[in-house]
């Protein structure tokens, strides 16, 4: 199983499309950092304008932590679109290339093949998060330094400098859970068809539709919303509330993990029975 997973990782990281996500994240974070380097003070001043009458702001709030949090806020909806470029291609790409025939006629079970691909895909997701952590948090601290972190959400929260890093670690970890769910959905779609474009587009379409539904507070949608996975994709932000709402965090993580399990289980059932005709 480890051997198969390593092979799948080699295949993933030898494809240029794998690096689109890394390049996009690198570029976006760099743009944000450069912009804030020159216009950061103005941005903080605008963001805190409504609180200026009640609080006296002292010190430099424009630091690495603040920027990393801002990037995470801005990108968590968009990173899934980068993840599906690889997730949608993992199975369907083999069908398109005709390499299913080589793979499925080897003396390993179909489930092992599928599980190795799923594992490798999740490792890819992890590597994206690690890259995001490096570019947004690591590089931002290097450029802007560290300090207290201001959170602008339902008011203002100031977190002490020594109370922040573990929150980022937690936030990145739980981001993995939500991104893994998106990856699993694209993986499921990928098991259904023989062309990678379909799963990529279908996952994006489902994500957009569910995100829109998650924002609507009407009728039956209101009752369904808590069970739609996009409603829980922002669970990482719990780590930046004080205190951290662990019950909400656990509930969201549970719903996301359940979706992941269902998506993987469905993909496994489909792949086991699939006639390889490509």
């Amino acid at each position: 199983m480890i051997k198969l997973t390593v092979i799948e990782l080699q295949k993933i990281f030898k494809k240029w499309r794998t690096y689109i996500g890394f390049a996009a994240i690198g570029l976006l974070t760099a743009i944000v950092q450069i912009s804030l380097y020159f216009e950061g003070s103005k941005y903080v001043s605008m963001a805190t304008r409504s609180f200026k009458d009640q609080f006296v702001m002292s010190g430099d709030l424009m630091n690495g932590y603040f920027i990393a949090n801002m990037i995470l806020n801005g990108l968590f909806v968009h990173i899934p679109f980068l993840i599906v470029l690889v997730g949608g291609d993992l199975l369907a790409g083999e069908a398109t290339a005709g390499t299913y025939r080589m793979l499925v006629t080897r003396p390993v079970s179909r489930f092992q093949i599928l599980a190795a691909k799923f594992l490798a895909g999740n490792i890819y997701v992890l590597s994206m998060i690690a890259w995001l952590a490096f570019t947004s948090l690591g590089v931002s601290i290097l450029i802007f330094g560290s300090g207290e972190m201001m959170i602008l959400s339902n008011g203002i929260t100031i977190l002490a400098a020594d109370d922040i890093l573990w929150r980022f670690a937690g936030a990145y970890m739980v981001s993995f859970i939500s991104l893994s769910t998106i990856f699993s959905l694209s993986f499921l779609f990928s098991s259904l068809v023989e062309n990678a474009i379909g799963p990529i587009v279908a996952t994006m379409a489902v994500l957009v539709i569910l995100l829109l539904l998650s924002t609507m507070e009407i009728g039956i949608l209101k009752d369904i919303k808590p069970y739609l996975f996009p409603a829980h994709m922002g669970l990482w932000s719990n780590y930046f509330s004080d205190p951290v709402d662990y019950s909400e965090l656990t509930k969201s993580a549970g719903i996301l993990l359940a979706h992941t399990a269902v998506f993987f289980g469905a993909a496994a059932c489909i792949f086991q029975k699939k006639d390889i005709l490509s």
Partner: protein
Amino acid sequence: MEKEKIIELTGLTKKFKDLVAVDSLNLNVYKGDVFGFLGPNGAGKSTTIRMMLSLIKPTRGEIKLFGKSLNENRIEILRKIGAIVEKPDFYLYLSAYKNLEILGKISGTDVSEKKIMEHLELVGLEKRYKSKVKTFSHGMKQRLGLAQALLHDPELIILDEPTTGLDPQGMKEVRDLVLYLSKEKGKTVFLSSHILREVELIASRMIIINKGSAQVEGNVKDLLDSQNVSVLLEADKPDEAVNLIEASIWKGRITSRSGNEIVLTAPKETLAALNKYLVENKIEVSAFVPSRSLEEYFLKITEGEGK
């Protein structure tokens, strides 16, 4: 003592909705056979091979390989098989060497550099081992397909149209390789090909399938010997020759006539008598070309296809 059955298909059937791709196919392949699997396009050859390799599931019937049910012993059986199914497709963004290394590792075989290079050398690709497969011609991919099929030293080699895309020299090399694997290494080879002459040259046993069902199965030599030979003869007086033939034991055997050329079928042992009969009756026979190739036989068996 009966030879060990390596492949045993019983009542194998595959339906795709209303289309019956393979219809109650029975066949046996014995240890050491080079088995020719013949049929026109769409006859069900690749579908049968895909079922034998567990790529698709049969609608009905049983597949036994090495005496064991494929359904229940899939992994154990696949460990002993090397195959090319239709066109050889590889990871185009990886080198020939890396492709073999990956496929060898998945097969659970030793993938030392020496072994991979030996197999690349066997198919004449040793100088291109670093090249990405996307730079390969179809023929080169076909050769690489052979290398991957042989890498884990399988007992049964299934080759689906292995010479497609190869030049004449390449075709001969594949033929020689198959004969070498069979005779020197004792491998069993299951070979599907539309190049019937090739099968005739290398297969010991064969089956011809058409529209998903078996037409005939047996030893290549026996099947050919038991058939009438097709003869093309050129006579100076074709009308008279036709009358003579219709008045003889060869009556009703003329299959076509064009100008001075007459084509008829006749048992092999009567050919000399036929020639003598015509000459004795003052017919000058300027050409007398018997044709016994498997292709004639194949065309005869599958005649009417597409009508």
